[in-house]
């Protein structure tokens, strides 16, 4: 626990030691605003809620989260510091979780900094703040899921660009697995339970459920499982490919 915290702090600080975290946060805030007010028609809808704001989060995350996660392990490999890190008296799990949480915290910070949108909607009307809080939690969980996928691909390569591209593709499939684009590939040959299983993997369906304001234990369990599985995969990949 103590070591996880130490690694978390180092990683979190290193995001801010380079312009990465700052660029990430500025771009996230700019696009979140752009999508909400222009594409989402925040004013035109005439409703006091943040649905147009949250609707675009998964799509924004699709490109921004891989940018955040790509350096997690690929950079350690490239610079050789992975050898330094893994010969310190820490367990691989502490390293995997500490570094992952740092990336997630940067995403969480960006999300918290969207609070002016929340103030705006409260100023303009009388929204259901419970539902907004739920949607924030849902959005944070989607970010966490995508970052866990990204951590795993970052661990598999020393090239950050490759980590980024592969992560975007994997995240795209995970986001869309509830949609016909992905499901059609299974229709016709896979049995119905398999199709249902694939459909239930979609980040979007679970996010939509939470964003409605209903925090169902099954949705939370879903995100917890996704994160745990991908982090376990990260630890396994690191163990298998330590040398190169």
């Amino acid at each position: 626990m103590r070591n996880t915290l130490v690694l978390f702090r180092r990683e979190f600080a290193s995001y801010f030691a380079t312009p990465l975290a700052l660029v990430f946060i500025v771009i996230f805030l700019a696009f979140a605003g752009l999508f909400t007010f222009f594409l989402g028609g925040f004013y035109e809808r005439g409703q006091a809620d943040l649905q147009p704001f949250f609707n675009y989060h998964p799509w924004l995350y699709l490109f921004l989260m891989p940018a955040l996660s790509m350096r997690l392990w690929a950079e350690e490999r490239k610079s050789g510091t992975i050898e330094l890190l893994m010969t310190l008296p820490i367990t691989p799990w502490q390293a995997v979780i500490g570094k992952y949480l740092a990336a997630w915290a940067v995403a969480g910070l960006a999300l918290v900094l969207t609070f002016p949108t929340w103030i705006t909607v409260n100023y303009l009307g009388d929204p259901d703040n419970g539902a907004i809080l739920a949607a924030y939690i849902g959005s944070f969980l989607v970010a966490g899921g995508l970052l866990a996928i990204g951590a795993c691909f970052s661990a598999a390569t020393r090239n950050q660009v490759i980590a980024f591209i592969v992560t975007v593709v994997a995240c795209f499939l995970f986001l869309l697995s509830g949609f016909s684009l992905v499901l059609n590939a299974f229709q016709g040959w896979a049995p119905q339970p398999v199709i249902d299983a694939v459909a239930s993997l979609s980040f979007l369906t679970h996010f939509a459920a939470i964003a409605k304001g209903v925090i169902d234990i099954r949705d939370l369990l879903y995100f917890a499982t996704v994160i745990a599985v991908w982090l376990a995969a990260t630890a396994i990949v690191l163990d298998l490919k330590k040398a190169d």
Partner: protein
Amino acid sequence: MIEISHLSKRYGPLTAVDDLSFTVQAGEVLGFLGPNGAGKSTTMKMITGFLAPTSGSVRVCGHDVESAPLAAKSCMGYLPEGAPLYAEMSVRAFLEFIADVRGLEGERRRARLDDVVARLGLQSVLEQVIETLSKGYKRRVGLAQALLHDPQVLILDEPTDGLDPNQKHEVRELISAMSKDKIIVISTHILEEVEAVCSRAIIIAQGRILADDTPKALARRAPSGKLEDAFRQITLHGGAKLKEAVNA
């Protein structure tokens, strides 16, 4: 004490380390010599628990590196090849981070930090970002990191590589000064270094031990009495003999 028994590492058909066995006692400074690709770094990576051996075992301070990695790693300090460091951190932040991970606290933490900073002359660059340091300073930060918790066992992979003659001299002095009650294993290409600091030298090639003796005794194996000639004689001749043995 480091006990290595029947240690091997294979990458597919390639055998990097082939059935290595030796022990190192406290007070010894072991020089690990060999041509490039002989398996020096791979052996060090297995001793420090970074790579898992294909077969065989390593025990450091009585702890098996594979089954009790944390205990073994706690009593070791390691300078990996090329001295990799977190480039974006300041020297101070980096050393504080290592102190955190090593669990140093309170008075002892301050004393240890002061000690390594003084020993390696890092006072003037403490606030500097590691990226901006010269190669010599980077190497010193790498050494400071390895020494910080005053470990019983020091594994240094080419500690003087890329340093100028004065810095090399300083690092050798440092190693000699610490050698009394510690186990120090260094790998190097520089034979004068072995003569200057090591109490024992192991020459390996193609993953096998070709010679294990004091540097003086090794040097006497060459007609000229020079360690350099002995090294060439052993590695070239021994390598050829090994090849014959494998082919036969």
